[in-house]
């Protein structure tokens, strides 16, 4: 599904990703861990097309299509979804109108008819229930005045509504208390299927107790330096990152 080859990218002349390779297949969950400054969030930004990132080498394809040539909106329409580490508050834009516009633009891109208000509301109700998202929040301004946990849950609700092929969760666990973490994880687990894939960026092993990954990658200094299964995350939790860095240098 996703194929990243020898990716080099950075911000303002500073190279952050230095030859990153990653293959993700449908149905897989990949966790990406690594120390601060390793380039985890940069990877999420480059995948979703954040404007200030510059790609200086390598390629990213999604089902054979070159993502790097696409605008952020076209990437989303092709099925890339980024759950933001810091979701943006946009006062005056209603959550529900925003989602309906997004959904219908994605449908139009695929040559599908816009969804009627009735169908949309039915879908919205179903997904709210699925990911345990409070109906009161749906009708408010987008993220305005939401608590940290509510914002993250809204990301998962959007994910449920838009049904992307590839979802990237950028430190979705940061700032969540244990109950919110459980709810968010339950939501993600319900959305997993053999057709979609997840990249989960996290600092902590804790999230991976709830969302069990197929692969765990360690990102260090702009490259994936070690790949393992879920046990690698446990090992990292116990031993930290230094041993991997040393191993990588050797």
């Amino acid at each position: 599904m996703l194929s990243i080859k020898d990716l080099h990218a950075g911000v303002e002349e500073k190279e952050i990703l230095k030859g990153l390779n990653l293959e993700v297949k449908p149905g897989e969950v990949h966790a990406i861990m690594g120390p601060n400054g390793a380039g985890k969030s940069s990877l999420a930004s480059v995948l979703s097309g954040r404007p200030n990132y510059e790609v200086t080498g390598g390629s990213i394809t999604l089902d054979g299509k070159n993502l790097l040539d696409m605008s952020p909106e076209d990437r989303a329409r092709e099925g890339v979804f980024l759950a933001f580490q810091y979701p943006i508050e946009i006062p005056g834009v209603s959550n529900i109108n925003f989602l309906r516009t997004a959904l219908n633009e994605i449908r139009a891109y695929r040559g599908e008819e816009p969804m009627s208000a009735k169908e949309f509301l039915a879908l919205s109700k179903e997904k709210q229930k699925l990911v345990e998202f409070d109906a009161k929040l749906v009708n408010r301004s987008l993220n305005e005045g939401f608590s940290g946990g509510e914002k993250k849950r809204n990301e998962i609700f959007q994910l449920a509504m838009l049904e992307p092929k590839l979802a990237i969760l950028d430190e979705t666990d940061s700032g969540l208390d244990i109950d919110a973490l459980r709810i968010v994880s339950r939501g993600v687990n319900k959305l997993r299927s053999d057709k979609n894939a997840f990249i989960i960026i996290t600092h902590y092993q804790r999230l991976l107790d709830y969302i069990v990954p197929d692969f765990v990658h360690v990102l260090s200094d702009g490259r994936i330096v070690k790949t393992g299964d879920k046990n690698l995350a446990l090992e990292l939790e116990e031993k930290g990152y230094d041993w991997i860095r040393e191993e990588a240098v050797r």
Partner: protein
Amino acid sequence: MINQLETPLYESIAAKFEIASLQSGDEQLRKLRRDAFELFKSLGFPSIRNEEWKYTNVQPFLKEHYELEVIRQELSAEEFDKTAALVAAHLEDVQHSLKGAHKGAYRLVTVNGRINERLSVLPDESAVRILPFSAAEHEPAFARYFGKIATLKDNAFAALNTALYNDGLYIEAPAKAVLDRPLHIINVLLAGANVFVQPRHLFVLQPHASMEVIETTITDQDQQHIFVNSVTEIAVGENARFHHYDIQTGRKGMRFVQRVEALQSRHSNYSNYTFTLPGADFVRNNLAIHLNDADLESHLYGLYLTAGSQLADNHTEVHHKMPRGESNQLYKGVLLDQSKAVFNGKIFVYEDAQKTNAFQQSNNILFSDKASVNAKPQLEIFADDVKCSHGTTIGQINKDALFYLQSRGISEAAAKNMMVNAFAFDVTEKIKIPALRTYLERLITAHMETGA
């Protein structure tokens, strides 16, 4: 002012005044016009050396050769059909939003300032009296208010209008009359050549009257220059309530200078909503409110969305003269392309105006590196027990928010449109007529999706 005497407009104005001064009504009116003309001659058209016009150079808009006469007689069949088609198309635009949600509005159509009854749907005279301005001279309220509300001192355009106004509307809501639907005034401008038109209006709301008025202006798509210099005086009686909406659209070649002044009595509410959209070359709105009595409220809401090389200038003045008045101003601007905007808001709280609450806020977003805003909030307080505040912000579009919307599959143009509507929201939500709000949001969307 030597240079002004040499402009063709100034000369034709002087010549026109000689004729007009002989024709107008009674001696009192002639004197008013003569004095106003003398004042205009001493002031001349303002230059950027005038503090009130520092950021708005009006001179380039006055250079054309303008006719001072417009079609005044009955419309020919052809002109009537043209006007009817323009009005129908406009109503389709506006009232598309009215369908189902609202019982609609009364309609008053004027063509170059002259009332066209065939195209109008007017309310009963017991609810509101509507007369041509020129036929209202003997109305008691006309004598009481005409020329008494608008400030001519240092206002060359208002003085010129007073000296030479063409015609306009006299609208009086009798005591206790409550108009059940909004009155939509459609000003149609038909110009066979470049014209300089000067409409003059007077609105009088007698005590306990209540009225909503929506003003729009339409014209044909010719390339003629049309300069509109209008003055509207408004008297809002005790316990009267007036919601006044002005939707300013237009096309290239149109220039507007308007002065709206309202005089309020005790327990009255005057609310003004001025919305300027892309189209006209230049708009200068002068809005002044005189709170000459105690216990009353005024609300001024403005929104300007400008594009191309448009210039939109809003000058407001709120005069709190008596105790316990409340005024609230909120102006928001969105500037595209190389457009410019000016906001100059003044609040005066006089010595006797204790317990005044006066607020003013102006917020702007620049959508382009070439757009600019000059904002100047001013507050002068001579009373000691008041609550007043003012503030201005000028910012750029929030790029993180834009990316967030795009990352969900929303196109850049649609995302910008959502953000502009969101920015404008605290002004548009104040619109009391839902269909009008829909119309305005549709206008914003239409411009954002083609322009930005």
